[in-house]
């Protein structure tokens, strides 16, 4: 069993949760999102984000609008949809459950 596999398994899903959470607070364009995710060390390379955004958009959890930019090509500004908000709420509770579960199980281990 490879550690990388387990790690990526763990990160899988959480990244989508993070993106939706970032967009909950208002629209953003990919560079903003990348900046936040990099800071949090959730991603290393920027290319990771674009397929995810497209996938979320195709699942109708996100939407975007075009905005002209003074320094470069037009930018896509992403925002969360109503469906995305419901999705996020469910993820929130799942995450809380998970965090609790992890806390409980790791704690028990320490006590023994």
């Amino acid at each position, binding site marked *: 069993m490879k550690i*990388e596999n387990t790690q*990526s*398994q763990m*990160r*899988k899903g959480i*990244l989508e949760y993070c993106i939706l959470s970032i967009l909950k607070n208002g629209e953003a364009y*990919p*560079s903003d999102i990348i900046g936040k995710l990099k800071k949090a060390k959730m*991603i*290393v*390379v*920027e*290319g*990771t984000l*674009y*397929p*995810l*955004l*497209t*996938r979320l*958009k*195709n699942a109708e959890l996100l939407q975007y609008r075009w905005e002209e*930019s003074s*320094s*470069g*090509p*037009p*930018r*896509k500004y992403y925002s969360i949809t109503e469906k995305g908000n419901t999705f996020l709420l469910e993820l929130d509770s799942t995450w809380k459950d998970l965090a609790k579960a992890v806390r409980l199980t790791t704690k028990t281990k320490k006590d023994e």
Partner: protein
Amino acid sequence: MNKTVNINLAGMVFHINEDAFEIFNNYINTLKNHFKNEEGGDEILKDIEGRIAELFTGRLDKKEAISLTDINEVIKIMGHPSQYDDEIEQEKPQEQQHKEEDLRKGKRRKVFRDEEERVIGGVCSGLTSYFDINIFWGRIMFLILLFIIGPGAPFIYIILWIALPSAKTTAEKLEMKGEKVNINNIEKNIKDELDNLEKKVRDFDKKMTKEVFGSKFQIFTTKCVDFFISVITGIFKFIASCFGVFAVLLGGFILVVLSTSLLTEGSFMLEVRQLFQYIFEEGEISSSLSIGIILFIGLPMVAVILFGLKLINNTTIHSNYKIGMLCLWFVSWFLLGNSGTNIALEFKKEAKNTTTETIDYNKDTLYLSMNDIDRNFDNAFDAKGFKVTPFEKELIGIGMRLDITKSKDSSYNLIKVGSSFGKNNQTAKRSAEGISFYFALEDEDMIFDDFFSIEKQLWRMQELDLTLEIPIGKTIYLDDSMEDLIYDIKNQENMWDYDMLGHYWKMEKEGLSCISCE
């Protein structure tokens, strides 16, 4: 000094050093390949290109051209597709995951063209890597095939050239050279698949017990459906690839036969082409009909091969080729229709030509027989009473009809009525005039030829009706060999043609009368 290349990224133009362009182009191709099977792959690529354009703009404050360093740093920021996969495992169908695992182990193989080792298009080198044959022997085999199947081989080569993708990325090159394809490995693969299926069933069993008692019925049903879908897809895929192999073999076979037979002596198509020479003037109709037939049969066969390859190897060709092929196919319809009309026009009018020959004979009894030579006709042309003579390859008619009637005077006459079709009255008439028929007179024997000649004319459904006029009071004898020649001869006894053979017949005022019958 450096040469630069202009590129357009997200609508912006950038100058990029040539060496840097190579690297960048490779990178974009890798991305393209990575996203090509994904829904919205184009969009993802555009987004990434847009972001790269932004990064470029940021780096071009004081200079104008993008250098190798810039490219390397941008690639470092954006990352390679392999890095994306490590971070986010995409939700792939199980099948694909297996495929990728296999790929990493170097197991599954796909056929690619190997352009690095190419002589013409890299088809041979690609195929030899697939079957793990030394490339030298592969080429020798191709040359041998070239001699065996003849002109069909280059044809097949070109189709494969178009149909097989070239191995561009490292992953594809790995796929091309995966594990050896041999009996052991095939056995192993099947075993793996079985184990896999068994595992799936076991997992499913476990899940079922767990989930039924966990009363999560909805999830359970979804899993159920998923499981059956995956089993059915598996079976379907297996059948599909078998079918694919069959399609490729069948299409290839027909194509080889078709293309080979065009030029090889003694083959079916050549016979068809030889027939044309009896029907058409050299040139236009004949060649447009040939091309029409080849395209009409050949193109669907090419499509069958491509379809088979798609089933086996999941290779597709550019839609331009498909549209081109479809257009060509319609062209073949047009060619066939056009030549069909032209042929029909050649048979529009009918004309007759009558000649009367007085036979220099005045004895009382004339013995009629037919010169029955066993010619062993060439069967190539066997329509409407025509055959091809074996040696001169000339077209002759064999379906004459002989009637026997009363002569108006005291001489024996042979009336020959030839008829033929043609484009117009003149050509039909000329063609009818070309009909010639001969007989020999030896002592008391009148010996008819068993064919009529059309004197190197084209086949226009010529027919020949013969009437032998007998003076009143004279007698004829019908030899058995006349069986195929006589047709509906009136006689006072009302006997059938066949029964008239082997008897003496006397011409009376009322018609023929049998004088040797009982």
